[in-house]
């Protein structure tokens, strides 16, 4: 008699969470062989330097502990047990968070690990998960470790290569499709899906920083703000939705305040900690062009530019506000504003929907402007690129998209 294939529905949610936590613990060790292999592969794929990839892996796996996962799930659905059985809910019928079914996560050269987290939450929800990625070495390898923890993962979690055009028609049969990409790409994918497939798209977003006038007046805290902003800029070559793309200083235009050269100094320090990766020619050309443009403006008396001999970064003070931020590796526009409304107006003008805003202090009007601009994370400088494991990427629930509530009224 053949034994039934074990899948995640047959094990308790707590066990799933523990397996993920244990696997993440193994991956948090920089010498863990699969991680060593994946580090090299991801560095080659992204062009990021090894310290950047190591940092990304640490940020991804270190916080993935059972308690964090349990808490983030419980905060959304009341209790981890709801994934196993009906639970009592005050003022509501008993409810069971049943798996929604088959989940597909599509990514193509995403920022490191961005597709992994939704996959893990979908697994916590006991869904059958397929991650389609063009060339990722990370997800498949991590799934391999999960399968070592419990064979049920081998049947419920798979990573497949994705060849875009040809695969696009093969998205039928999934209950949820999660995709990362530009709005145009997401629209195209959504168009291929059957009407009853739930689509979760993570589109283009930017992140910004805001240093208040009060902070600029406090010399003792400025160095820390500059160091944090520098790190937010250089990590992942300014490519992710959590990268610092534009920085607002609450100060009048004119000569750059001392904070700007201080920031340039800290960017150079951050460059030493996180060396620039392999830039392709087009990126190099763009960075060089950003610098030449800023130098030309500065020569005509507009703004100022900070860079280094290798053109590894470009910091432009007071560029024309009619122009969007450079969106090039380690390039940052620093814009003087009178108030947060002016910053919000700049973001609106350039159709920049925020993912996160780093702010130098907790000031209500700044945080409101950030959330009005779409921001779903309001945080400190230096934290932009370190979202908590339970953070709501794109403002979405972590597990809510992967469950189907069953209410028991009898």
């Amino acid at each position, binding site marked *: 008699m053949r034994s039934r294939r074990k899948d995640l529905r047959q094990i308790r949610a707590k066990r799933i969470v523990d397996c993920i936590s244990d696997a993440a613990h193994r991956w948090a060790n920089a010498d863990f062989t699969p991680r060593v292999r994946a580090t090299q592969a991801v560095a080659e794929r992204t062009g990021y330097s090894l310290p950047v990839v190591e940092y990304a892996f640490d940020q991804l796996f270190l916080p993935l502990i059972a308690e964090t996962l349990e808490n983030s799930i419980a905060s959304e659905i009341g209790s981890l047990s709801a994934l196993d059985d009906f639970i009592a809910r005050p003022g509501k019928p008993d409810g069971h968070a049943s798996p929604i079914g088959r989940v597909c996560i599509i990514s193509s050269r995403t920022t490191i690990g961005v597709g992994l987290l939704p996959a893990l939450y979908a697994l916590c929800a006991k869904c059958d998960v397929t991650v389609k990625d063009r060339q990722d070495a990370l997800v498949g390898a991590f799934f391999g470790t999960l399968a070592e923890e419990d064979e049920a993962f081998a049947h419920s979690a798979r990573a497949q290569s994705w060849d875009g055009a040809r695969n696009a028609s093969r998205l039928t049969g999934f209950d949820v499709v999660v995709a990362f990409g530009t709005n145009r790409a997401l629209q195209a994918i959504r168009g291929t899906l059957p009407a009853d497939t739930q689509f979760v798209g993570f589109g283009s977003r930017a992140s910004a920083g805001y240093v208040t006038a009060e902070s600029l007046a406090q010399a003792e805290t400025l160095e820390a703000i500059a160091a944090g902003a520098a790190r937010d800029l250089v990590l992942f070559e300014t490519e992710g939705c959590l990268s610092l793309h534009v920085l607002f200083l609450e100060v009048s235009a004119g000569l750059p305040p001392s904070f700007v050269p201080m920031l340039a100094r800290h960017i150079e320090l951050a460059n030493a900690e996180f060396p620039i990766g392999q830039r392709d020619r*087009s990126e190099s050309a763009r960075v060089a062009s950003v610098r030449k443009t800023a130098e*030309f403006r500065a020569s005509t008396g507009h703004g100022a530019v900070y860079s280094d001999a290798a053109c590894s970064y470009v910091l432009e003070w007071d560029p024309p506000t009619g*122009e969007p931020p450079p969106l090039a590796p380690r390039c940052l526009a620093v814009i003087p504003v009178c108030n947060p409304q002016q910053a919000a107006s700049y973001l609106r003008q350039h159709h920049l929907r925020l993912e996160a805003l780093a702010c130098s202090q907790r000031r209500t009007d700044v945080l409101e402007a950030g959330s009005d601009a779409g921001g779903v994370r309001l945080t400190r400088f230096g934290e932009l690129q370190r979202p908590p494991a339970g953070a709501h990427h794109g403002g979405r629930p972590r597990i809510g998209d992967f469950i189907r509530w069953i209410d028991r009224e009898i």
Partner: protein
Amino acid sequence: MSGYPEETTALDGELLRTMRSWRDGGHALHEDEFNELALRVFRYQLRYNEPYRQYCATLSETNRTLPSNWQSIPPVPASAFKDAILTTFDSARAALVFETSGTTRGRSGTHYMETNALYDEALLAGFNRAMLADGAVLRYFNLVPNPLERPGSSLGYMMAKVSARYGDGNTGWYVRAEDVRATEFLRDLGGAMAQGVAVCISGTAFGLVHILDVLGARKMRFVLPAGSRIMETGGLKGRTRVLSRENFYEELARTFGVPRESIVAEYGMTELTSQYYDEPASRAAAQRTKAGPPWLRSMVVDAAGNALPENIVGTLVHFDLANRGSVMAVATEDLAYASGESFVLLGRDADASLRGCSLDAEDLLPI
């Protein structure tokens, strides 16, 4: 500005003579002739173009010595045309004012020209030698903005001049308010075919792809009269469906029934006065090379601005002596590699855009 009119007249005279001599007799400039003229134009611009002078003053090497050869002339980034009025004259006196598209980077730039003489002569000579070596009189089908509607379009101005000078008097314009008028285009093309008149379809890649899509949807193909040709310009990324140049030309050749060699890419930019075209000898080759007229030269450089040897990819810097009234040396982000006196253009990417979490999301598109 004492001496300006005299200097200007003398320089323009020399440039116009150079252009006509090439147009009529194919006379090219020797290296030392180009060098001498380029340095003259540079010194003139340093004297009379204040923003350029200021810019050069910030470049340390220029502070100490003037360049000794054309390759050392400091280029401005193409974006400088957005940030300053780059003229050797009062821009209020400009005879021609062209605007860059500015669609993706928010602001448009402006290229002011003091007279139309240099521009007209440069564009007509360039088009004549690159596109009309056989002396053909063609009917022009322009898939570019009509200058009557968009006077700031340098491409529209160019095609108006070309059509008026070299056309059969029945020029058609098929882009209005950014829309491609496919039905009118097809009706008029049918008319030209019925009369057996050879045509020149000129258009941006965007406009041509749109026409191909319309024809594809209607399952229509043509065999244009012998001698017909197509001039395309502009990049393939950003505004249209993603298509390799190879496939694009295949589709054009198949749909319009013209030999692939009769499809010629023009490479120009509003910030320049002169244009490059596919070299005739390379039009049948897989990798086409581009060449400009004798008064236009290019250099492929690395990110620090150093010249790169042949076959090494870098970005293009143009030295267009016909930019006499603005700045002759213009740096671009266009990727290319040098091949002899010419270059192979690799990419004119759309401007950087926000990528979200996916770094090459276009790969996800079901094409």
